[in-house]
């Protein structure tokens, strides 16, 4: 399974399932009746399965961390592409589905903590490029060694290793650059006007739902970003001062121009940064189309009436 978990979604689920404190009345109507008990499970077995997890934290609860809640450490950094393998688990002789789920969850948590805790660190966004490139470097050494030990073609193994390392480095470079530029564009846009506000001062258009398959697919959004940046600058430096001039005269217009100078500088840069970010994303998707399909699958597949 594929999981993309945002901390806000977890909070929403917790709030929805929370039992408000109420004065529980005793169920007197059933006192003379015998209610059917929950089913008894002699054996409940879940076969092995894999889970690829992305986790996006929003806020770190420092007070909970101080109180000893170590699980809050997970909110330090986003986690990307962490693959967890859960082995077969069997829960026996339990009554009710609640106990079954509890047993399964505790078994899996125990397994993750005992065997796969290192993945939380290796796949944290800060360390993921390093761990991936490290994996590529190890392939460069391990594959030729294995080939030598097994009597295979060492040259071919070295070529495979180098290819794997180059692909990993390129992929991580493109992904990291795309994310950094996207972050920079969002920050600059927030200063100027904001991505999702529908106003003339908005220097950033919303990204298309479908991810770009390659460099050719990015031209539309990239051109729109550049144009939007210039449009926002034009709006702040030309149109608004003109309106101020009509209302308040030259003094008002001059003030508007002065206010608009930062926007004039930042807005085109914002558009250009967003265009660059999207282009890098397109290049990354061309290199790894399977990752693109995976990301698209998380945003599509809803029936038309759901949206």
């Amino acid at each position, binding site marked *: *399974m*594929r*999981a*993309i*978990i*945002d901390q*806000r*979604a977890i*909070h*929403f*689920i917790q*709030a*929805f399932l*929370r039992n*408000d404190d109420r004065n529980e*009345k005793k*169920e*007197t*109507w*059933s*006192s*003379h*009746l*015998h*209610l*059917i*008990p929950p*089913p*008894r499970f*002699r*054996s409940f*077995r879940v076969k*092995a399965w*894999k*889970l*690829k997890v992305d986790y*996006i934290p929003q806020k770190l609860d420092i*007070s909970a961390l101080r109180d000893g809640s170590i699980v809050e450490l997970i909110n330090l950094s986003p986690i990307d592409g962490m693959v967890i*393998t859960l*082995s*077969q688990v069997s829960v026996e002789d339990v009554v009710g589905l609640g106990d079954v789920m509890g047993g399964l969850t505790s078994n899996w948590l125990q397994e993750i903590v005992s065997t796969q805790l290192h993945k939380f660190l290796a796949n944290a966004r800060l360390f993921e490029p390093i761990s991936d490139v490290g994996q590529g470097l190890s392939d460069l050494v391990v594959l030729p060694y*294995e080939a030598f030990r*097994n*009597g*295979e073609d060492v040259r071919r193994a070295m070529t495979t290793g180098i290819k794997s390392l180059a692909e990993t480095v390129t992929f991580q470079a493109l992904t990291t650059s795309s994310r950094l530029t996207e972050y920079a564009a969002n920050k600059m846009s927030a200063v100027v006007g904001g991505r*999702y506000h529908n106003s003339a001062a908005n220097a950033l258009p919303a990204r298309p*739902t479908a991810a770009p398959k390659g460099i050719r697919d990015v031209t539309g959004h990239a051109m729109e970003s550049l144009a939007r940046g210039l449009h926002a600058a034009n709006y702040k430096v030309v149109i608004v001062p003109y309106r101020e001039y009509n209302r308040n005269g030259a003094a008002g217009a001059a003030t508007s121009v002065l206010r608009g100078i930062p926007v004039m500088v930042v807005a085109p840069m914002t558009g250009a940064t967003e265009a660059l970010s999207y282009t890098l994303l397109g290049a990354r998707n061309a290199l790894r189309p*399977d*990752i693109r*399909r*995976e990301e698209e*699958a*998380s*945003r599509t*597949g*809803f029936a038309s009436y*759901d*949206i």
Partner: protein
Amino acid sequence: MKQRLRIYKESLVSPILFRSKIFSPICQDAPSFLVDIRDTASIRSIGETKGFSQKQLHVTLYHLTLRHNIDSDWIEKLQEILPQTKLTDPEHHPSIKNESPPSMTRVFVSIADCNLDYSSPTFFETESRSIVRLGDLRFSSNIMIPANRNQAYSISLGDLSYHISNQRISHSEEDSKLCCAPIIMPTNPGRSRRCQSVSMHGTTAEAVLREMGFVDILGLDSVDAVIAVTDWSCPGQKREPGKDPRITTSLTFGLLSVNACKDSFNCFAATVGELQAKLTALTDEDLSRVRGATVRRNQERTTSPAVPTVQPSMQRVSGLDSEQKGNSDAFLLDGYDWTEIDHDPLREWEIPDGDEQVAGWYNSLLEGGTCSTGLDPRVTVPDQMRGYPGRIIHHHFPFHSISNPMSEGDMGAAGHAGKGSELVLKSRVLIHKLAVKLRFYDGYDWPEKLNDREKKLLRRNGTFVIEPLPRDEAVKAKEALASEVASKFEDEDLTHMKRKVAIMADLLSSVQDVEEKSPFDETPLPEDRAKVIEQKAEMRRLSRKTKIYLQVSVNGVTVRIDAYEESITHRLASVIGVSVSDLFVAETASLSYPVKMLGEWVNESEHPRDTRFGTLMLKVSSAIAWRKVFISSTSALLIVF
């Protein structure tokens, strides 16, 4: 006449089945109950001396409401009133059997725009009223007399919706519109005061229900069911007891959707849960009957030869595996001899977790094709194995099969029942293409029902409406509430007395509560107006937010339920197989567009999937209790296997 009318005044009359008065029908003139019986003339078939009579029975129910009272026994009382007719058994009355000509009765029942009205009884903890609206239900069958070997029934259902309210809305206004209501149902003041009364002004049924405070919580598009009953005692094809059921039910569903906020979902779950508990609860009499049955079963078991117990499912139970075992001896794909499978699966070699695509070579140097250790395909073949083709390169070919693995085999029932067991399939239920969509929204469907305490524990400027206060702030809020309650503690006695007097006054008064209010009472003061505006804004803030939700979608659900007859040779009751082709959980709490929080991992290169099997597959086998049924010290019913 007057004496009979006086009876009505002294008794509590409740309508059971009546033409709906709160909803406007599509066709005003259509009758509510229509029966057509057509008896075609006997048709003489060519070459036959006796005629074959055909009848048609059409029953139409339109725009009716059935009010269900959980404690009502009107059906039993009606049966007592109606004359009892003894059903003649043709086997004991051969003359009847031989004389009556064969006949076929074609039955068509159509139910349209009808409602089921249920209010939770006052002794239930959850206060609610539910209205189930049925758009269209059709039933048809050809009933043969004498009965044929096979008898089929077809049922189609469309547009089912479930509306719920979190209060016991009074029926008084609706009852007052029924025919002869003033005579048969004089107003009962006590009854109307226990329930909430609302006015109804809307035009469509949905508008009326919304006005009354109902929420449309559940909807079902369509259901098509075909029920086939086979009488195996009639001459015909020989029955295989383990494979051919007596009753086969095939269901094809449309979309089942649930749209609810936190409060409406809790109300719905509690209402259904309490009703289910009440309907399935056992009285002392029922319990003694169950005990007797288990004692008898136990005695039969102990007196009969040793019977096998339920085998834990150590062997593989998938229908596919049993098919493979059965076919491996002579399986030739398209008749080519090189496709013959001449080795059994290698039991010594375990497929490592997370690496399902591994492959390996059989060591044919050893006899029988068995190997003490499996070969790791990722390494070169060792020197002693030279002559083998070389290393294996994995390459997955997507295989799209239209066959349904769940329709084959017995789902491992024979393995569960144990050796020597005689399985007789009683019934089979097949469900095709069920889609379920559960959507849980932010906000509340009944924000006006939230008390001050609940409102104070909600975060005002949080991401969601239902977001609670942080821990420390919640503790402070609770302390503030507690001190508020403590300050009112002294006045409690006085308030209690006042309330007692008010209740007594209500019970004793026999006049309708129509108070003449001053016209100025309805005109709010300026300071009250601001408060009203504030309250309305607060209601809008707390009401349902359609853009923020959590959705659980389950598509392509296929279910097969095989139920077995009771037998002393085994304890297997049923085997259930469930396959879900697509399952995901989506949310819009984090972004403005839906994102799949949990779903299928789509990546053909990292882990290709076999499309024959669903994202989620479940197999459940249930067994009959044979040992003891007893009641614990806490009055809980315990069943020991």
